[in-house]
């Protein structure tokens, strides 16, 4: 693990502004992967960079990459809090308990934990409505598949992933009633070799459109080799597979980082649970492949507009799970709080949710 500290502009300004130098507002970030993963952590870091650009030398950011989700995380977060950071963003689900523990010890520091559900007075949570992107992915995959079999590479069976699997299937089913969804758990967020194996195992079983919930572009590369389609995760992955790439659902964290840091500076910050989607520009459809058929492109656009404007709500009742239980009654749409607890597969998915 490397600790990289970025002092942007400070050094250059030092000579001029020493006399009335103001202490910059320090913001820390903890990433689970390398910033070069071109997926999840990469996009958090782009959000950090944009936030830094927005505030200029009023803000000093520090990030620590490749932090494993466990005791190590607690040490790193503590270190950042001790170093005088006023806001610390911890950007992986597995940092939840370490963040809670450190937040208790540093009541004057604001903590923001991505994708978690535990909050405190000085600890807020934020997440993306990735299910919106998955729904569009599902619709597209449902139209593109010739074998009526879509593959989903999951990382870990946590609510975020389960929810996205449901959204993918519901999207696909809405355009292709015969579609089947095969799910493989890689048990890792980032292991290109394992992700390749998972992609191949799915393709061997007739999958011709891959959706991945892991962070490396390896599944796209594997899909390109076999001449099938795949959808990019978290960042624009089009350059890894010009033919196979359908589109990428890009995470855009910058608006949230700018807003939050501003609020803490102004003293208006309050702990809350924030969900950002296409509507907030925190999700973006990027690099829709020009080699897609025109009708598919039209349907992608139509679905995108519907999801963005809210006329399409993937988790609008009635929805039954695959054991026959009504999980969303008619007339109800899952609230954010309920979305955070989804632990069922929607009717039609033949697998069982792992414990």
């Amino acid at each position, binding site marked *: 693990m490397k600790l990289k500290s970025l002092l942007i502009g400070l050094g250059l300004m030092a000579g001029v502004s020493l006399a009335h130098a103001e202490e910059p507002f320090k913001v820390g970030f903890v990433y689970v992967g*390398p910033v070069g993963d071109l997926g999840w952590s990469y996009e958090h870091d782009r959000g950090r960079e944009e936030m830094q650009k927005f505030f200029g030398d009023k803000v000093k950011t520090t990030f620590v990459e490749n932090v494993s989700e466990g005791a190590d995380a607690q040490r790193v977060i503590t270190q950042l809090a001790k170093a005088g950071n006023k806001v610390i963003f911890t950007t992986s689900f597995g940092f939840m308990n370490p963040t809670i523990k450190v937040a208790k010890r540093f009541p004057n520091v604001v903590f923001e934990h991505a994708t978690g559900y535990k909050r405190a007075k000085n600890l807020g949570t934020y997440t993306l409505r990735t299910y919106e992107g998955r729904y569009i992915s599902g619709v597209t995959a449902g139209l593109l598949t010739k074998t009526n079999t879509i593959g989903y590479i999951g990382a870990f069976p946590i609510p975020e992933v389960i929810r996205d699997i449901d959204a993918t299937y519901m999207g696909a089913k809405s355009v292709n009633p015969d579609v089947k969804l095969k799910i493989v758990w890689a048990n890792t967020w980032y*292991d290109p070799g394992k992700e390749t*194996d998972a992609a*191949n*195992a799915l393709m061997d079983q007739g999958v011709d459109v891959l959706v991945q919930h892991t962070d490396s572009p390896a599944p796209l590369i594997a899909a390109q080799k076999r001449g099938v389609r795949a959808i990019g995760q978290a960042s624009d992955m089009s350059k890894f597979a010009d033919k196979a790439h359908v589109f990428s659902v890009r995470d855009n964290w910058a608006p949230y980082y700018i807003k939050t840091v501003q609020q803490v500076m102004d003293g208006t910050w309050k702990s809350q649970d924030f969900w950002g989607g296409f509507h907030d520009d925190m999700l973006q459809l990027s690099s829709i492949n020009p080699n897609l058929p025109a009708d598919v492109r039209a349907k992608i656009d139509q679905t995108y507009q519907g999801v963005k404007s809210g006329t399409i709500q993937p988790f609008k009742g009635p929805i039954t799970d695959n054991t026959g239980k009504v999980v969303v009654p008619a007339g109800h749409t899952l609230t954010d709080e309920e979305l955070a607890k989804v632990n069922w597969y929607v009717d039609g998915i033949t697998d069982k949710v792992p414990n």
Partner: protein
Amino acid sequence: MDADLIVQILFAAIKTGTPLLLIALGEVICEKSGILNLGQEGMMLMGAVVGFIAAFSTGNAGFGVLAAMLMGSFMSLIFAVLVLQLGANQVATGLALTIFGTGLSAFIGSEFVGNTVQGFQPIAIPLLATIPYLGDILFKHDILVYLSFGLPITIAFVANRTRIGLILKAVGENPHAANAIGIKVLKVRYLAILFGGAMTGLAGSYMSLVYTPMWAENMTAGRGWIALALVVFASWRVGRIMLGAYLFGFASIMHLVLQGLGVDISSNLLAMMPYVATVIVMVVISADQFKEKLLAPRSLGKPFDPRDMA
């Protein structure tokens, strides 16, 4: 499960087993000379990153492989100097080499993360590839896999049927006796270690140029360690190493395949399969203690100093 799926699983098992096979073939020669090099993971990562950088910069995958083998040898040379010249403990030095290689590869590779290269394309061997089933499993691979088919035969021949093999065995079994009859023990060990390093570098380049044509920190994900277990698993026999490598490949593929088929077993349990397989084979091997004693090179892990008289 239909025949096509079985063919594809076996095809994938060979691909997954290939890096393990390459490392284990190098390490078995090294161990036959009496040296235990636990630095496989570090050397493999260095091979992967340097191979990737060379292939990415020159656009030539063959050059990448060459660079990876040189890097692997260079890493093993560091090990050799410490162990042979300075008499350092082999286990500790090997572990240090792994930690060193893991960190250094992450450092020099950070600029190259997020790129991809045109690695080796699969080549279907004329005629052989048209054999039903077998052709699809064995003869539609890339050049490195074909190389890995030929290497065990060559290595087994050299180790068991030639003078070089005898010298190697003498050095590994009883270096003092070998020294007494005029064999340069240290020179033989140097060469064996360098050969092992080159093979591990080759395996690293297989990961970053063929398997997943990209560089990512720690992308070998413990394969170097599995290969070390494989050498013991195969009780230092080249033929068994080949079989074991594909068995390991098969086990690690099956955990994903079974999930796709909807088999209702915990994926964590399935992910353990290759490791469980290792433990089982270790138990089976050590059950026959006498046999194992016969097969493990007798001076394995012991330093040699010609001034000591045995």
